[in-house]
C-alpha cells in the first residue's frame, strides 16, 4: 500500500512538472519582449540590455526554464510586467483572502451536500427527494456568474437589500474583518458545489441502503437511526470523498469568476487583471499555483481512497 501511495505521489510530481513546462512554453510563444513590456516608455537601449541581463533573457531557453522552476520552488515568482514589483508581494495577501473564501465554502458545502444527499436518498421518490434532486439538477447547470448575479439581484439590490454586493475592505486590512461582505461570494460557491456532492451522496447512499448488511441490521432490530448512522453512512462516504475532492479542486478555478464578480481581492481577481494586462509572470505563477492545488487535492483524495479501500491494502491489487 505504501508503494501504491508513493507511486501515486511520484505521478503527481511528474504531472506538476509537465504542467510547469506547458505553462513555460506557452509564455515563450508570446510575441514581444518582456523587458520592453516592463520598462514601457522609459526603455532606452542601455536599460533594456541591463534588464534583459537581470532577467536572464539572454540565457538559453532550458536554463531559463530551470531557473524559473528553481525560483518557484523557493517562492521567488519573478517580476510583474504591469506593476514592476515582485509577484510575491502582489500575491501574498491575495492568496490568504482566496483561501478564506474557499475554506468557508468548503466548510459549509461539504456537510450540507452530505446531509441533502442522504435526506434525498432516505426519502426516495417522495416530494422531498424530487425537490432536492430537481434543484440540484438546475443549480448544477448554471454558470457561476448566473448564480452570483441572481444572489446579488435578490439580496443586495431589489428584493432584500441587506448584503453588500462588492467587497470593499480598505487596502491592507484583512477581508475577514468584514464578514458581511464574505456572505454572498461564499454562498455562490456553496451553491455551485453542493449539488454535485448531494447527487453523488444520494447515489451511493441508495446503493448502500440496498445492501445486505443494512437489511441484516434492520432485520435484527437495530433502530433505524442507528442503521443509518452506524452501518450505512460510513460505507457511503468513501466514494463521495472523491467527488468532494474534485469539487474542491474545481473551486480553485471557479473562484476566479466569483472573485471577479464580487470584486473580491483574491487570486482570481488578480488572474483576470493579469490576463487583461497580459502580465505574463503573474499569469504563469497563478496557473502553476492553481494547478498545484488541483493536483494536491486530487492526490489527497486518491490517498484517502487507497487507505479506506480494503481491497487495495494488499499492495499488489489494482
Amino acid at each position: 500500500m505504501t508503494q501504491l501511495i508513493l507511486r501515486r505521489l511520484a505521478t503527481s510530481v511528474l504531472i506538476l512538472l509537465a504542467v510547469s513546462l506547458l505553462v513555460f512554453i506557452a509564455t515563450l510563444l508570446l510575441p514581444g519582449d518582456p523587458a520592453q513590456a516592463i520598462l514601457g516608455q522609459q526603455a532606452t537601449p542601455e536599460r533594456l540590455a541591463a534588464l534583459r541581463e537581470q532577467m536572464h533573457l539572454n540565457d538559453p531557453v532550458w536554463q531559463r526554464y530551470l531557473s524559473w522552476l528553481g525560483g518557484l520552488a523557493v517562492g521567488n515568482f519573478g517580476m510583474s510586467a504591469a506593476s514592476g514589483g515582485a509577484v510575491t508581494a502582489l500575491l501574498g495577501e491575495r492568496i490568504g483572502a482566496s483561501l478564506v473564501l474557499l475554506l468557508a465554502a468548503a466548510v459549509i458545502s461539504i456537510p450540507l451536500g452530505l446531509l441533502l444527499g442522504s435526506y434525498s436518498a432516505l426519502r426516495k421518490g417522495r416530494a422531498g427527494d424530487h425537490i432536492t434532486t430537481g434543484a440540484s439538477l438546475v443549480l448544477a447547470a448554471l454558470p457561476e456568474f448566473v448564480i452570483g448575479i441572481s444572489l446579488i439581484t435578490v439580496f443586495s439590490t431589489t428584493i432584500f437589500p441587506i448584503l453588500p454586493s462588492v467587497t470593499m475592505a480598505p487596502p491592507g486590512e484583512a477581508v475577514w474583518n468584514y464578514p458581511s461582505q464574505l456572505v454572498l461570494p461564499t454562498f455562490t460557491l456553496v451553491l455551485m458545489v453542493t449539488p454535485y456532492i448531494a447527487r453523488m451522496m444520494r447515489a451511493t447512499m441508495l446503493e448502500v441502503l440496498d445492501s445486505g448488511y443494512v437489511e441484516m441490521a434492520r432485520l435484527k432490530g437495530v433502530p433505524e437511526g442507528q442503521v443509518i448512522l452506524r452501518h450505512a453512512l460510513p460505507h457511503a462516504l468513501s466514494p463521495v470523498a472523491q467527488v468532494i475532492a474534485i469539487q474542491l479542486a474545481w473551486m480553485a478555478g471557479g473562484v476566479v469568476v466569483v472573485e471577479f464578480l464580487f470584486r473580491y481581492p483574491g487570486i482570481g481577481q488578480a488572474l483576470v487583471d493579469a490576463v487583461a494586462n497580459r502580465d505574463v509572470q503573474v499569469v504563469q505563477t497563478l496557473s502553476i499555483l492553481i494547478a498545484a492545488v488541483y493536483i494536491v487535492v486530487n492526490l489527497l483524495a486518491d490517498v484517502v481512497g487507497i487507505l479506506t479501500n480494503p481491497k487495495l491494502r494488499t499492495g499488489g491489487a489494482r
Partner: protein
Amino acid sequence: MSVIDAPRLVEPEAKVRKGTFHRFIRQRQAKIGIALTAAVVLLALLGPLLLPWATGYTSTEFAGRPFKPEGLLGTDNLGRDVLTRFLDGGLRLLLFAGLATLLGMVIGGLCGMVAAYRGGWVDSAIMRTNDILLALPQLVFALLAITVLGPQPWVLVAVIGITHAPRIARVTRAATLAVVTEDFIRASEMYAVPKWKIVVQDVLPNITGPLMVELGLRMTYSIGALASLSFLGLGMQPPTADWGLMINENRIALAVQPWGVILPVLAIAVLTVGTNLITDSLARASASLNVGESK
C-alpha cells in the same frame, strides 16, 4: 436462409434504439429540457431577424427607462438599445459553443477510441497527456491561452474544445473498452478490415449512448465557459453584442437599469438548465453508467 436471417439480426438492435429514444422522450424532464432549449435557440436564431422592429432608439442619456415608447426596455450606459443588443447577442454564443463542443467531441472521441482500441503504449501516451491537461482547470487553461494568443473567437473555440477533449476521451475510452472485447470486433479483425474502419463502423455505433450524454454535458459547459469568459471581459470584445459581455457591461448599473443584466442572465440560465435536463434524461435513458460528471 441468409436472406431471411439478415433482417432478424438487425431487428433487435433497431428496437433497442427506438426504446432508448422512447425512454428518453417519455420523461417529463426531457420534454421540459427540449422546450427550454428550443425557446432560447429560437430566440437566438430569430432574434437578429427581429432587429429592424426593435431598433431605432439610441440616446446619449445614461441608463434606460424601462417600458418607454422610445425603447421597449431602455438603453444601456452607452445609450444603446438593450432589447436590440439582447436579440443580437445569442447567436454567436450558441454558434461558438456548438463549434467548441464539436471540436472537443471529435478530438476527445477519436483519442478515447484509439487509446482503448490500440491499447499498449498508444493508450499510455494518450492517457498520460490527458492527466497533464486535466491538471489545469478549464478556465485557467483558457485564460493562459488568451494571455498568449489574445481573445479572438477562434482562440475561444479552440481552447474550450481542447479543454473538453481529455474529459471526453476518458468517457469514450471507458465505453470503448467495454466494446472492443466483443466477438464482432474480432470477426472484423479476422476479415482484415482496416483498423480505422473497425473504429468507425463497429466501435462508434456501439458507444453512441455515452457519447450523446457527453455531448449534452459538454454543450452545457461550453455555453457556461464561453459566457463566463465574455463576462470576465476576456471573451467576446466590445462592441460585439453578446450575452456574457452584456452582463459585464451592464452590471454596474444593475439597480438603475436591470434589464441589460437580467435578460441575458435569464437566457443563459434557461439555456443551460434546458441542455442539462436533456443530458440527464439521456443518461437515464441510455443504460450506460458512464455518465461523466467531471468538470
